[in-house]
């Protein structure tokens, strides 16, 4: 394999690994804080137990997220020194802020995990909330930087050099905030759905275990709300992409010819040489509606752009469809539970619903991975859209295959170990029936 492709694989693998732990690190602290707040509010110690269990999960996953995030901060230079040399001074600012967010996250997580008996209860809850807030802030800052790679602002390019640098303008680039909101919602929805799936599966075996009932209720409330909001955020992002990264949008839809009233293509296989998409389901005018909120709007096709500026159409298009499909499934299940709750004020616990939750539960993370494939592969061949090619930023270091292989094996091993340990934890979950809890 070519060294450039290996470098991309290593970066992609590192990001794909880290994003799971990062997302859980954002959402699980919020869930454990909600549980603790309910405990302090109601005095029901099932919530206390729940906060403690979830915090143990948060501890394990946060640590792996922290170290894999460290790897990424170094890999920016190890793999893409040309990019960092150019971009460091323009977009370093949000990374510096992220550093502080990470500090408060780590400090207050330490207090939360080890301080149950050492600090007063409200202070303990406050520590949990600080962890949750700093996790969200970290995500915000890092995604501002990613947004800049997609819609670079805050400098002028003269003879390949950046001048008139304005780091604030770079940080608040057009794609940053919409992307960050989309990812934050995704992190909450994905994590909450995995948690809901675990507790739903356990509830199937013993429906009167109120430990799992309460856990499921909190997870569904958070996951459901965010899954229902997510399409709105996606809609905003799609319009922005249509405007600022038309090639990416065209690739997401495998849309070749510029047309008015463009149809939405679902699935299919692209024949890039022939410039067409085969076997897809087409919904007339839908792409124009989604991209511009107008059924007759013109949507630019790939043929309007140089072929050398195209990303890999199949990957981007199918990843996009996978993400949307998962998101829709999660939204439907959420609406089902929400509808039942609004009517009866009760937690939906029919077997068919619990099984549906279990089936849908990994889809949030599948959507996150697929969504980042769209964002990152869709920007190819650029590392900074229309400014710097990925191939111009890669390290001259030969033999990258060695480090890529070692990191892949390491992460594979870590993934297996984390799964093993988390399952051992779940195996120890408590059995508490209604009326047995201490008030």
């Amino acid at each position: 394999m070519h060294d450039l492709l290996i470098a991309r694989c290593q970066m992609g693998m590192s990001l794909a690994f880290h994003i799971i732990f990062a997302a859980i690190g954002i959402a699980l602290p919020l869930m454990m804080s909600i549980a603790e707040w309910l405990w302090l509010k109601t005095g029901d110690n099932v919530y206390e137990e729940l906060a403690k269990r979830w915090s143990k999960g948060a501890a394990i996953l946060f640590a792996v997220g922290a170290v894999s995030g460290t790897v990424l901060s170094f890999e920016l230079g190890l793999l893409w020194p040309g990019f960092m040399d150019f971009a460091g001074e323009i977009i370093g600012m949000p990374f510096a802020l992220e550093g502080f967010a990470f500090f408060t996250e780590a400090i207050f997580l330490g207090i939360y995990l080890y301080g149950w008996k050492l600090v007063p209860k409200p202070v303990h809850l406050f520590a949990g909330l600080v962890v949750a807030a700093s996790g969200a802030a970290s995500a915000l800052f890092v995604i501002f930087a990613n947004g800049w790679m997609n819609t670079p602002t805050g400098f002028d390019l003269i003879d390949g050099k950046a001048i008139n640098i304005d780091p604030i303008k770079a940080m608040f680039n057009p794609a940053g905030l919409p992307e960050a909101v989309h990812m934050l919602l995704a992190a909450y929805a994905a994590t909450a759905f995995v948690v809901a799936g675990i507790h739903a599966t356990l509830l199937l075996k013993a429906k009167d275990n109120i430990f799992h009932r309460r856990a499921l209720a909190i997870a569904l409330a958070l996951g459901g709300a965010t899954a229902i909001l997510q399409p709105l955020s996606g809609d905003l992002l799609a319009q922005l992409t249509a405007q600022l990264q038309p090639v990416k949008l065209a690739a997401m839809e495998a849309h070749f010819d510029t047309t008015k009233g463009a149809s939405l293509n679902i699935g299919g296989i692209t024949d890039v040489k022939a410039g067409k998409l085969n076997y897809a389901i087409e919904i007339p005018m839908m792409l124009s509606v989604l991209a511009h909120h107008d059924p007759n709007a013109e949507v630019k096709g790939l043929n309007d752009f140089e072929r050398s500026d195209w990303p890999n159409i199949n990957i981007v298009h199918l990843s996009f469809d996978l993400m949307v499909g998962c998101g829709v499934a999660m939204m439907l299940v959420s609406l089902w539970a929400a509808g039942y709750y609004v009517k009866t004020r009760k937690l939906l616990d029919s077997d068919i619903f619990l099984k549906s939750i279990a089936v849908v539960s990994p889809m949030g993370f599948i959507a996150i991975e697929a969504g980042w494939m769209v964002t990152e592969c869709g920007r190819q061949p650029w590392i900074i859209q229309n400014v710097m090619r990925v191939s111009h930023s890669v390290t001259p270091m030969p033999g990258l295959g060695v480090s890529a292989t070692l990191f892949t094996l390491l992460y594979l091993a870590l993934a297996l170990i984390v799964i093993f340990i988390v399952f051992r934890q779940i195996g120890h979950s408590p059995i508490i029936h209604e009326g047995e809890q201490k008030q």
Partner: protein
Amino acid sequence: MSLSHADCVLLLGGVGVASLTLYAVMGGADYGGGFWDLLATGPRKDEQRKTIEKAIGPIWEANHVWLILIVVLLFSCFPRAFYTASIALHIPLTLLLFGIVLRGSAFTFRTYDSEKDEVQKRWGRIFAISSTITPVMLGTIVGAISGGHIITKGDFFSVYLSPWLRPFPIAVGFFALMLFAYLAAVYLTADTKEPLLQNDFRLRAYITQAITAALALTVYLLARDGAPDLWHDMHIMSPIYVGTFIAAVATVVFLATRRFAIARFCAAAQVAFILWGWALAQYPYIIRPSQTIFNSASHIATLELVLMALAAGGLLLFPSFFFLYHVFKIKRTTSSMPGDKLKEQQS
């Protein structure tokens, strides 16, 4: 008030050295703890390990963030130096990352794994070994950027191996390991109330203090050929070296008289002085022989903003850190172990 570009560069260079110092005296001791876990011996082997786990459990992740801050400062304020280091030190940096990932994950797996069985013991072993390798790589990297052999163009050996695979940087690597082990041993004397355990750690502090002194001399002698420009810029009798010596002696005296809390500060001061001595000799270079804090610096707009962010972040950070250390290092005296808590919860 408006700062010139050179003022900003100096301030940020100072922040960089301060962050490195805090990483060494706080995070370094966490690695040292892992080293002593690996070498736990004698009748109180298990108690030694428990004390180590209890001491670093709540704080290691926060301490680790200093390293992130250093990397972020480097690439946002001195991107050219980050570029150069990322290319020439690709191999030791990658090894460092392996160590960091293994240390952090293995420690967490060991703490939080539900069952205290053979599998769990294995995490302990991995934690201890990676805690030992990582500081060696860190020190080697510091040695390499001081040695003056870093280039970014040339054949594989001279670009990717020769800057760090030589006696001076590797000696600095072992020096760093011993300093961290020394710090951990001194800190651990104050992390337990058990006199016999205190003696165990005190003995380890004495031994590593002696090895550290021998290694300091070795590094100094190797610098003459291995880092000639740095050697030239070292002024052996400058006040900072005197300070190092006084702090080293004071630590031993306070350890001998069982005033462990004060010994802890003296040991931290000793390591800080060593780092500052290095930083002053290295000034104005980040990476010898080509990158200084001045010629690798970003545009002033970036430097000013990062300084403002650091000031604002510091207002948040230092009280938080104080609180963390207050809860776990000052207030906590006889509370239970995290491991005990887990057992309690499980039963």
